């Protein structure tokens, strides 16, 4: 029993990392007033690029860097469209998700000729048995706490928040709203890119067709549930990481007890758990009115 809990917890701690990075990044972006629905696409794209780089160089850390750069590029695109072109942020994000999915699978097939998954790549080692902790976990936690401190305890964080609350007033107070929103979008996307790369080089070990499976949207839910507070998103990411872990763990456990059942079909049912969890928690625990006032609205100067 204890080993089960330890095993589940260590799984959860791994699963929470991409969720934490993406949600903290998105909190920064949304606090400035921009909503990036394209997190899912960024996760897929950076997962692919990092698997490609890691495969070619055999260096998972370079893969991580490649993931960050993919996220950065995606952030530049989304930032440009949302902030400078005053485009519809939700549509741009949805379009990006489809685009990123398409281009990643194209890349997958083109590089390795396989439709489902890439070959295994080198991974970042864990430490600290029996709770296998990835080195990226403390890093992600530090990033989350730093962002919390920055947003709520420094003047530049205040300026960023002002952009998301009332950009006209912020502009009148000397804040360059457009630039701040753009940079916030790029930063958020970069963090998400690191998260996506991590799924490959720190966790699954390969790029697969459904590598993200909605995690980008779970991150969005975590952003809202945490009240746009990076410190609280740590808890949210852990909870959903735990759901993730359970959904993979339970079918294996049940199969052990009852070997007659078909594993593949059964695992489908349990895959529902994380999404159902998000839905229930979000429906019952979300309180409106805490979102940044100007979220999602393009800032148009006269």
């Amino acid at each position, binding site marked *: 029993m204890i080993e089960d809990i330890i095993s589940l917890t260590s799984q959860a701690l791994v699963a929470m990392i991409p969720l934490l990075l993406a949600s903290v990044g998105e909190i920064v972006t949304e606090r400035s007033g921009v909503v990036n629905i394209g997190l899912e696409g960024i996760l897929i794209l950076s997962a692919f690029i990092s698997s490609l780089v890691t495969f070619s160089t055999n260096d998972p850390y370079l893969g991580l860097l490649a993931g960050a750069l993919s996220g950065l590029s995606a952030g530049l695109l989304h930032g440009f469209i949302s902030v400078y072109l005053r485009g519809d942020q939700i549509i741009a994000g949805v379009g990006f998700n489809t685009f990123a999915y398409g281009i990643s699978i194209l890349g997958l097939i083109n590089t390795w000729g396989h439709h489902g998954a890439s070959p295994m790549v080198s991974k970042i080692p864990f430490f600290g048995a029996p709770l296998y902790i990835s080195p990226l976990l403390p890093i992600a936690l530090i990033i989350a706490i730093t962002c919390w401190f920055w947003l709520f305890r420094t*003047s*530049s964080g*205040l*300026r960023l*928040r*002002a952009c998301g*609350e*009332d950009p*006209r*007033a*912020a*502009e*009148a*107070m*000397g*804040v360059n709203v457009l630039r701040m929103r753009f940079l916030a979008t790029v930063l958020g996307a970069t963090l998400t890119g690191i998260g996506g790369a991590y799924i490959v080089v720190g966790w699954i070990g390969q790029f697969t067709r459904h590598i993200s499976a909605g995690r980008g949207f779970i991150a969005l839910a975590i952003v809202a549930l945490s009240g746009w507070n990076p410190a609280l998103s740590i808890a949210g990411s852990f909870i959903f990481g735990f759901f993730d872990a359970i959904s993979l763990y339970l079918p294996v456990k049940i199969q052990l007890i009852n070997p007659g059942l078909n594993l593949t079909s059964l695992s489908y049912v349990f895959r529902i758990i994380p999404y159902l969890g998000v839905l229930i928690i979000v429906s019952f625990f979300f309180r409106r009115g805490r979102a940044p*006032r100007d979220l999602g609205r393009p800032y148009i100067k*006269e």
Partner: protein
Amino acid sequence: MKLVEMRGITKVYPDGVVALKGVDFEVSEGEIHGLLGENGAGKTTLMRILYGEIKQTSGEIIFSGKAVSFKGPWDSMRSGISMVYQKFSLVPTISVIENFYLYLSSFQRGVGIEEVRRRAEEMMERLKFRVPLEANVEDLAVGVQQRVEIIKVLLSKPKLIIFDEPTSVLTPIESRELFRTLRELKEDGITIIFITHKLKEVKEITDRVTILRKGERVGTYETPSVSEEELAIMMVGRGIVPTKRSVSSPGREVMRVEDLWVRDDRGLNAVKGVSFELHEGEILGIAGVQGNGQLELAEALAGVRRAERGRIIMDGRDITDLPAEARYREGLAYIPDSRAVGLVLEMNLMENSILTSLRDFLGRGGRIIWPLASDRAREVIERFNIVGSLRSQVKYLSGGNQQRLLVGREIIKAPKVLIVSEPTQGLDVAATEFIRSTLLKFREEGRSIILISSDLDEIFELCDRIAVIYEGKFVGIGRNEDLTLERLGLLMGGVNA
């Protein structure tokens, strides 16, 4: 010494509108200089150019002896120019002290919050009024918010402060307090530009005044040397003719409101037990500074907002539980104070003209009969002199035309009771006169109007009876002939003399 010199300022917008035509404007150091003009004359535009928010099409600006070309407000702020807008530049969802912190950190990177607090306290001492530093700005009354804005602006030790129609959100008493503050600032050597369209204010507070009309400068004068009448003529180009209101003989009761209680969007009571009657052929005015419950009262009467308690009876029928659409069908009409609410700006004129009487244009099965709608639209355009075509999007119409559309659409339905809020806010004199005479004509036909306005001149010009609303209650109600401006002003400020 000339602090500000603007030479030959012209501003033409991309859609062809000429806002300013070769305007020269100069301000001497240490004076309070009034900038007078009716709505749309270009006063705010000229100042926004000085402040760096908008770029002029041609012309130059010299500030403190140096030619300048500000790239944005923060640029001009660093040179010592500040502007206090009608709509304050405060972030409403954070606290007062955070707003100060935000503002000061644009000037001095690395200033600490304790330093900000110290300077704020110092300023409040100097000005002899306090504001709650920890409260969120949106929770404060408008008059207090303006004080926060003033303190904020002073924190950066500006040389010049531009005030844009500051008294439009204040009671007469608060306005007097503001003028006292302005005089204190002048004593400290700060130069002030005071934008207004109110002649009395020009005479009361300014040293010199520049008059703008239709984007051109008419003249600059020492304030004591011009009379209000002369200023009025220069502002409008002709004498302002007040609308003639015939003495009324009100008929039977058409509406009765009993003990109405209404909550605002935040759940607080905005209307606290209002009762009154309205008669046929009467205009009842509700005077008061915006934010005292007028919006909630108007919306509750129209059915757009639910009342907590109380009854509304129109023509003998209890309409308290009727939703808005049903009330409109019963003969009630409502013209809200914001054109963005009363009109659907993205839709065209024809689509807008059926907004509040949709049922009249439906055929079998809920089908819209568009030819009927276009007939109605053409009627409104003709009767109310609107410049615009059926298919043009309403957002491209001028403010005056939009207001004519809004007012016309409601009046053409010939409602029994018309509730209208701030009908001439932001309009030029021609449109204002038109709308006011339209309302009077409507009353002469035996209909009834509830007029909500923060403009006391308008109230006196149009209303037969006047009520004053203060903090959600009627604090005085009487006939026009029995009331004076002073008494109204006191009542609006909460003083029950």
